[in-house]
Every structure is written in structure tokens, then in C-alpha cells.
């Protein structure tokens, strides 16, 4: 159970830090420092944070194109993550990956992913490895309402269910898949039905509410860790920014965006913390300043990091070692 005293401030701080990080990306794109596509998840922080607060370093996550929050919430360094997004030498992948391919082996981050839905199969595989090796880890797949229309979800739900794999299927329903409104893309809007159709217990949660996500994830992680199998969490959420830099957003109204801001997960949690006296008046402003400074530092680090040596383009394709023996 989410405990406001134990988890409140920690969760709020992490959400705010991720938001501060993500909010800078459009300007960095504008400045020409980010190539290709980068997808910020401002507004959706409660999902990644609520889930990750229940995870350990040994656990695995497989993310999607909108994956910075998942990665950072899992413990990734903000500077190295930013450096990767900027294609720099000190990025987690030495600039080879970029925003859509950030992996952090030691944190079990099996990558943000450029293929919508792919993380679903990858998390299932991580959970399979956990079961085969008995290492006690669990795995999380993050995907969107759009990704839920990939057939691999059905296959993964079924496989995880029959084998009782320790995996969480976390669907972030932010109501749009790029520019496609989800009401036009599904006929049955209750995504929990999908999990249940394959024998995976599924729960719908308010994805703009950290405690709600936390509690659902806690139950699901415990279930997985105990060998009782997979769960699905359907989080209702929203992205405040465009799908990616340059999005004209012709597919939604400004009013709708404004409306969702009134459910903002940071504001809501902060209000609760202030109302319950955990956060003193004025205290959050100071924390926010600190966070801004931390992200300033991360950005400085990333900007200062050199571009990779062109010769490194040819390394890391194949391993040269093999099985080390038992």
C-alpha cells in the first residue's frame, strides 16, 4: 500500500525530476541537438514512477518509443540518459541508440524501442529467463493504447498466463496513438478485457494518480515474485506535449489538453502532501529549484560530452567471446 509518509515525497520528487528532464527535449530538438524522433511523456509520470517504486535493480523493464520516464524511473542516470538522447559518447549506448534505443544492462533496462509493441515480447522473454534461471526477478512491459493493438500482446498474454511468467503488462492509455484517437482504433475501450480473455488478471487504474498506480503495481509485483504469474495494469493517462517535436496536434483540442492538466499527477500528489502536512508551505518550491539544478547539471553533462568517435560505428555488432563455462 502506498504510504504517503514513506513514499509520497520520494515519488513526487522523482516525477518532478522526470518532468523537468522531459520538458527540455522540445527545445533541444529545436536547437538541432536531437536527431530523429524523441517522444516526451510529460503528464504520464505517475505510471513509470508508480510501477518502478515497486521494482528492484535486478528486475527488468522493456519500454517503448516514449521511454525516458520508464528508464529514469528505473534508476538510470539523468545525465547519461540525456547524453544518449543527444547522441554523445557518454550516453548509455555511446550514441548508437538515441532516444528510441536506450538500454541500461545493469538496471535491467532492456531498451526503449522504436517498434511499437516490441517491448511486450521482450519483457515476456525477460520473465521467461527469470523463471528458467530462478533468479527471482520480475519483468515489466510498458506499452501504449496504440501498442495494445499489436498482435504480440495477445500472444504474450497467453504465453505468460499458461507459464505463470513473472511479468507485468503495463498499458499506458493516453488516448492517442500518434495522431490516432483511441476511440476510433478500438471497439471495446475496456482494455482489461484483453488481459482477462487470455487469463491474465487485469486492473484499470487512474494513471494520473501515483498512489493508485503504486498499489496496483505492488500487488502485481508481489504476485509475480511469488510465482503466481502475470498481471495487466491499464493506466488511464495523457500526454501534455505533442507526440514528438513538430506535432501540429490537429487531432485534439486545446480544451481537452487543458482539461487533463486539471488531473495532473504532480499537482495532485503535492496537494495531498501539503494537506497532510508532510510537505511544508514553500518547501516544494525549494525542492523544485534543486531538481532544476540537477537537470541543469544533467543537461550540462550531456552537452559537454563529445560526439562519438566515428570508428566506434563499427564495434559492438558481434560478441567475440562465448560461453564462459560452468
Amino acid at each position: 500500500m502506498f504510504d504517503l509518509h514513506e513514499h509520497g515525497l520520494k515519488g513526487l520528487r522523482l516525477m518532478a525530476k522526470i518532468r523537468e528532464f522531459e520538458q527540455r527535449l522540445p527545445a533541444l530538438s529545436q536547437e538541432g541537438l536531437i536527431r530523429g524522433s524523441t517522444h516526451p511523456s510529460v503528464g504520464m509520470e505517475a505510471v513509470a514512477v508508480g510501477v518502478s517504486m515497486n521494482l528492484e535493480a535486478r528486475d527488468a523493464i522493456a519500454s517503448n518509443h516514449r521511454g525516458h520516464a520508464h528508464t529514469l524511473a528505473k534508476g538510470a542516470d539523468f545525465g547519461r540518459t540525456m547524453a544518449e538522447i543527444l547522441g554523445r559518447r557518454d550516453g548509455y549506448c555511446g550514441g548508437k541508440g538515441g532516444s528510441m534505443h536506450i538500454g541500461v544492462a545493469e538496471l535491467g533496462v532492456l531498451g526503449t524501442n522504436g517498434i511499437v509493441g516490441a517491448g511486450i515480447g521482450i519483457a515476456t522473454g525477460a520473465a521467461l529467463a527469470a523463471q528458467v534461471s530462478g533468479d527471482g526477478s520480475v519483468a515489466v512491459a510498458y506499452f501504449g493504447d496504440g501498442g495494445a493493438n499489436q498482435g504480440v500482446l495477445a500472444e504474450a498474454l497467453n504465453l505468460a498466463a499458461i507459464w505463470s511468467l513473472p511479468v507485468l503488462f503495463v498499458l499506458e492509455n493516453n488516448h492517442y496513438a500518434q495522431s490516432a484517437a483511441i476511440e476510433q482504433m478500438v471497439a471495446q475501450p475496456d482494455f482489461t478485457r484483453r488481459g482477462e480473455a487470455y487469463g491474465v488478471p487485469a486492473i484499470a487504474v487512474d494513471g494520473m494518480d501515483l498512489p493508485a498506480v503504486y498499489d496496483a503495481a505492488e500487488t502485481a509485483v508481489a504476485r509475480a515474485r511469488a510465482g503466481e504469474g502475470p498481471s495487466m495494469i491499464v493506466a488511464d493517462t495523457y500526454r501534455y506535449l505533442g507526440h514528438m517535436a513538430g506535432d501540429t496536434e490537429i487531432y485534439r483540442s486545446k480544451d481537452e489538453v487543458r482539461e487533463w492538466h486539471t488531473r495532473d499527477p504532480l499537482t495532485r500528489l503535492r496537494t495531498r502532501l501539503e494537506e497532510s502536512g508532510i510537505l511544508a508551505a514553500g518547501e516544494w518550491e525549494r525542492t523544485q529549484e534543486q531538481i532544476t539544478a540537477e537537470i541543469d547539471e544533467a543537461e550540462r553533462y550531456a552537452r559537454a560530452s563529445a560526439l562519438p568517435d566515428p570508428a566506434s560505428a563499427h564495434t559492438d555488432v558481434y560478441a567475440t567471446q562465448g560461453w564462459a563455462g560452468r
Partner: protein
Amino acid sequence: MTEKTPKNLTTWRALNSALHDILADIPEAFVLGEDITTWGTGGGIYGVTRKLVDVYGPGRVRDTPISEEVLLAAVGAAAARGTRPILEIMYSDFSLLGFDGIINQAAKARYMFGGQFDVPLVIRTNGGSGIGKAAQHSQSLETIFAHVPGLEVAVPATPGDAYGLLVQAVRTDNPTIFLEHKNLYYDKGEVDFQPVAFGQARIARPGTDVTVVATQQVLHAALAAADQLAEEGIEAEIIDPRTLYPFDMETVIGSIRKTRHLIVGHEAVRDYGWGAEFVAQVAEEAWDLLDAAPRRIGGARTPIPYSEPLERTVTPGRDEMIAAVRAVRGATMAEAGTPA
């Protein structure tokens, strides 16, 4: 199709024009894909489907869910049932999600069933690198498609060919993989609004000293290289095959007859890439015509990396082309005792 006066257009506009003309002319044609009516100013990720829905309505211009597998399976069958689907796959990398539909089904349907079905299907998508889209949005998969019996493969390099090949692709009764290049959408060129027959190479630049076969970005690199090489006294003849299946070896061999040297360049991974087929065919059929060993340039054996200096390193450009030409011509001149 009403006669139209030639225009200078970007590739995406040329393609958009083609789609408008196709939907106007061919009642069986319809267009579908992800975000094709709701993105940008209402026209898909690179604008190619712009305003189609306004004119032809949501029955013939359909936004789809993110379900590449069923889409790629369904369009082949829709084609076999008498329609002419034009499916946009946002990036060619995503087509890998539906390879069963393309390779096991659409490509084989005509043959397996003894010629009973035509499959007039077009899968429009984009490949290639150059704009930092990284490993899963930048592959050049044309060789794979060209290797599959039953498929036709178009790889337009200019706005004019983009228009003409697309119109042609929809008219033919075979499944076509229509591979646009993501870094050429904003290139401008003359569009004469005429269909372009498949299997007819275009001589993009006439020359006498070396034959260069190349497509898309590497074709443009070759054209840039040719200017520099001309200053060095080497006149390259540059050939754009335009389609990889059917392919036009006659034009290539005709050119070699004159130039006696061959280079093939592409962005696809060099190992087992389509350049090998061109070189192998020339070696088999026109062995005596070459005065020096042929040479290929192509993508490195790596996925496409994100960071710019890395991306540039793994795909061939103007400099690699110049070096290749010098090496091939140099070999001959050295042999002939001429200083290279």
C-alpha cells in the same frame, strides 16, 4: 488521366499527386495506413497522403490501428478479391511485423493457386538512413524483397520517377514493394506525370569511362561524385535501375560495353546486398567486357547508429564513390602502364 504540364515538385508532393490521380482514375484503388489523414496538415508522416480523405472520403482513405501484421495480410487478400489496395507502412522496418502476409501469402498467392488470382497490391513505405532515425527506422531492406519470387520492387530516386513508378505500380497486377527514401522526400525535381515502366533503367548521367549502378541516396552521391571525377578526367555513366525486380541488365551491360568498368553502390548492407547480384550477373554474362575487377560499395555490416558521425560512417557517400571509381580506373591504368 488528363494530360498535365510538367512541374517542379518535391518527392512527397509528387507522390501525393500520384495518389490523387490514382484515386481519381482507378475506382478499385484505395489507400490505408497509420496516421495517414490525421498527422501534420492531414497527410501522414511525410505528407504523402495529404488531403486524400477530403476528396475521396474515409471509405477509400483509411486510418488504421497499429496492426501491421493483419494489415499486411489483409491487403493481399483484398487485392486478390478485385480491389487495388495501397498500404502505407510508416517505415519499412515495420514491414518485418507482417512478413508472413507479404512473403508467404501475397507474393505466392498467384503461383500457389496456379494463376487463378491477381494480386494488384502496392505497399508504400520508406527506407534508408540519413536523418538520425536510428536502427529500427533506417534499414534498407530492398534486397530482401527483391529476392522473393512474386514481388516487384521499386526504388525511386527522383520526384518524377516517384510519381511515374507509383502510378505504374498500382496499375500492374503484381504485388509491389514501393520503397521511398526518407531523406529524399524534400528533394525537388521535374515531374512529367507519366507512368514509368518497371524494369527500365534510367541513365542518370551519360559517361564513357566507368559504369556506376546506384539507387536513391547513393545515386545522388554518385552524381555528386561524377562532377568531381569529371574534373579528374573520368566520365562516369550513372545508371539508376529504378526497379530491382524486374531489373534491367541490358542497359547495364550496354553501358559496360562502352565503359568497361563497373561499380555498384547502395545503402543496403553490402554483405549479401543487391549489388552482389548485379556484379555476379555481369561476371557471368559479360566477363570479357570488363577491363578491371568490379567493385561494390554499400552499407557497413552494422545496424544504423543514431549519432550523426556514426550514421555517416556506416553508409556510403560521395567520397566513398569517388574512391571506388579511382580504384577501379586506377587498376586499369596501372595495368596499362598509365600512372593512375
